[in-house]
Every structure is written in structure tokens, then in C-alpha cells.
């Protein structure tokens, strides 16, 4: 950011912080460009995924039916919460063998990616700059690619279970006959409705997470700008607003992770039900 000579304006600061580090070496210009990868999003999501799985795996490999330690208890509470939710929504025990771990992974992974928001907004990007990394966004869920990637993953699981439970023929039949009824005139309407439903589910699923985290990140940046004014009022404002928003954000990151998990379960549960 720091172009030699002058400090960035507020607008430059925000734009800089919202720019992904990608393989093209500069900010992406077109809205969709499949030749570009966001290195920061991938790095942080893989890193956090690996860390969360490492801890879950450690708890799992040491799990005993005897008296559990604190760490094991904590993981067990989490697993039991997810298992209960899955049991209430997905009624096939066979499917739950895949769906419940999916829900657990999604919850823990998203929660930890969201939690990156609680680090000071400038901490990691500034460290990156010292090593010559020009851009860095640390919250992988505040990248639309990250959030939509996961929601499309859930969509693929939904399609898989639709075909598995109803058979390819049964599912295609359902696509054309539900929700309005089995009549040739209604086939196109039904099909369009179904497509809109899938599209709306998936996009709203990913967008809800992305929107919340993006907005949260933006507010943290605005608060950081207050402190950046280097006045007494700005400093006090930064401390007060930053504290309040960070505490409130603890609720948001947990809630968003939980909502994403619950919606994933609900959508997969719907794939099990015939209309």
C-alpha cells in the first residue's frame, strides 16, 4: 500500500485491503476470470482447514470411552451437537455417516476462517508487506469464491443424494412434475421453478456467509481508519468501537458458521424427501 511519499487516503486504504492476492499479480479486472486463483484465500482456507482437522483428528485418535479430558470433552460436545442436529434433519442413518461429518467439518472450518476476522485488520497484511507481499486478505469466507465454493459443494452433495435416493429417473421425473403437478403443460414451469430453487438455495447459502463476513471486515477497516487519523478522538473511537464490534463479531462468526451448517443439513435433508 504505502506508495512512497504519501500515506494512503481512506479510499485507497479500503480498496487495498479488499484486494485479493492472486496469481495475476494485480487486482482482478473482469468480474469472472477462470484463469486466476486467489492465493491468499486458498492459503488461509487450506491452512485453517488443516489446523482444524489436525485438532479434531488428535481428539479422535485419543478418544476413549473412559473419563474424557477437557479437550476431548470439548470436541465431544461439538460432535454431539452436530450429530443431534443431523439426526433431527436427515432421517437416513446411512446418509448421516457422510452428512454428519460434513456438517462438523463445515462448522469448525467456517468458524475458524471467520475467526480470522478478529485478528487486527492490519496485522497479517502488514507482516506480508514486510516480506514483499503486496496484497493479503486473511478471511477466506469474506471472499465470494470461498463462500460460494462451499455452497456449491453442498449443492453437489444434494444432487448426489437426489439421484441416490430417488434414482436418476425418479429425480428427473420430480424435476418436471414438482411442485405444480404431473401435466405436460406444467413440465416447463416445474422445471424452471426447480432450477430457480436450486440456484437460489446455493447462491443465498454462499452469499449469506460472504455478505456477513465481508461487511464485518469492512466495519473493522472503517474502525481502523478512525485510529488511523491519529487524533485523540480517533484513538478513543477506535478502541471503543473496535472492542464493541469485535465482541459482537464473536456472535456473528459463530452464528454464521452455525447457519451455514444448518442450511447445508436442511438442503441435504430436502434432497432425501420426495415431493
Amino acid at each position: 500500500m504505502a506508495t512512497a511519499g504519501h500515506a494512503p487516503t481512506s479510499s485507497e486504504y479500503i480498496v487495498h485491503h479488499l484486494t485479493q492476492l492472486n496469481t495475476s499479480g494485480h487486482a482482478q479486472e473482469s468480474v469472472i476470470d477462470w484463469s486466476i486463483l486467489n492465493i491468499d484465500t486458498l492459503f488461509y482456507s487450506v491452512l485453517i482447514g488443516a489446523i482444524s482437522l489436525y485438532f479434531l483428528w488428535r481428539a479422535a485418535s485419543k478418544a476413549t470411552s473412559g473419563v474424557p479430558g477437557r479437550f476431548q470433552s470439548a470436541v465431544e460436545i461439538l460432535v454431539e451437537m452436530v450429530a443431534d442436529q443431523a439426526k433431527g434433519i436427515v432421517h437416513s442413518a446411512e446418509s448421516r455417516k457422510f452428512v454428519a461429518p460434513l456438517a462438523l467439518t463445515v462448522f469448525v472450518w467456517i468458524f475458524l476462517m471467520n475467526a480470522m476476522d478478529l485478528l487486527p485488520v492490519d496485522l497479517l497484511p502488514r507482516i506480508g508487506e514486510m516480506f514483499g507481499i503486496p496484497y493479503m486478505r486473511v478471511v477466506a469466507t469474506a471472499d465470494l469464491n470461498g463462500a460460494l465454493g462451499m455452497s456449491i459443494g453442498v449443492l453437489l452433495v444434494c444432487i448426489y443424494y437426489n439421484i441416490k435416493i430417488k434414482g436418476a429417473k425418479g429425480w428427473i421425473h420430480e424435476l418436471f412434475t414438482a411442485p405444480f403437478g404431473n401435466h405436460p403443460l406444467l413440465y416447463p414451469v416445474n422445471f424452471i421453478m426447480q432450477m430457480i430453487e436450486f440456484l437460489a438455495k446455493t447462491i443465498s447459502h454462499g452469499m449469506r456467509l460472504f455478505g456477513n463476513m465481508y461487511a464485518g471486515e469492512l466495519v473493522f477497516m472503517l474502525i481502523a481508519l478512525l485510529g488511523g487519523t491519529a487524533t485523540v478522538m480517533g484513538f478513543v473511537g477506535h478502541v471503543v468501537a473496535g472492542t464493541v464490534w469485535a465482541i459482537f463479531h464473536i456472535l456473528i462468526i459463530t452464528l454464521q458458521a452455525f447457519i451455514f451448517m444448518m442450511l447445508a443439513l436442511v438442503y441435504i435433508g430436502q434432497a432425501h424427501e420426495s415431493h
Partner: protein
Amino acid sequence: MNLNATLIAQLVVFFILVVFTMKFVWPPIVKALDERAKKVADGLAAADKAKADLAHAEKKVVEEMRKARESAGDVRTSAEKQASTLIDEARAEAGRIIAAAREAAEGEAATAAQRAKEALRDQIAILALAGAEKILRKEVDAKAHAELLANLKQELQ
């Protein structure tokens, strides 16, 4: 907020993480949870059984105590009865012995009195005879009056 190939990569990462969790995280934890639930259930069942056993044993103890008390009572009653029987028998025996002793003593006393009477009578007869003899020495012929004297002696007896 641009879309790019990160989306696909994130999709792949998503499935890798899910499969890892499904294979290595979920099963051991759920297994441990189920096992512990079973252990707890077994423990509770054992505790219930132990409680029932204890209640049963207590009931048995009360029953045994009752029986013991009852038989102790029986023993005492029969002992008392036996003792009173023995006392009664002893009393009767003593009575009998006293009566026999009294009877024997009375008999002996009677015999002794009789004997004394006879001896006394004999001596009186002899004394009477001697006196009469002294008085009548000259006038009475012992031989002639022997019959008379014998009669007198007879009467005195």
C-alpha cells in the same frame, strides 16, 4: 468480489476436508461416545441391581431376626414350663418324703409308747404283786392264789 478459479479450488478443498473428517475424525469419536453411553447405562443397571439386592438382603435379615426372636421366645417358654414342672415334682416328692417320715416317726413313737406302757404295766403288776405278797405273806398261799394273781396280772395288762 470477483469470481475466479479459487471457487473450484475451494470446492475441492471442501470435499477433501469432509472426506478426511468422515474417515478419521467422526467414527472414533462417535464410537467412544456410544461406548461411554453403554458403559454408563451398564453402570446404572448394575447400581439398580445392587440396590435391589441390598433391599432383598435387608428384608431377609429382618425375617431372620424375627425368626430368631420367635424361637428364642419358644425356648424360654418351654424352659419356664420345664422348670415349673421340675419345681412341682420336687415339691410333691418333698411332700411325700415328709409324709413318709412323719408316718414312720409316728409309728415308732406309738410302738415306743406301747412298749413303755407294757413295761410300765409289767412293773406295776410286779410292784402290786410284791406289795400284795408282803401284805398277805402269811395269809396267802402263793400256790393257792396263783390263779387269782394271774387273773390280776391279766387285768392289769
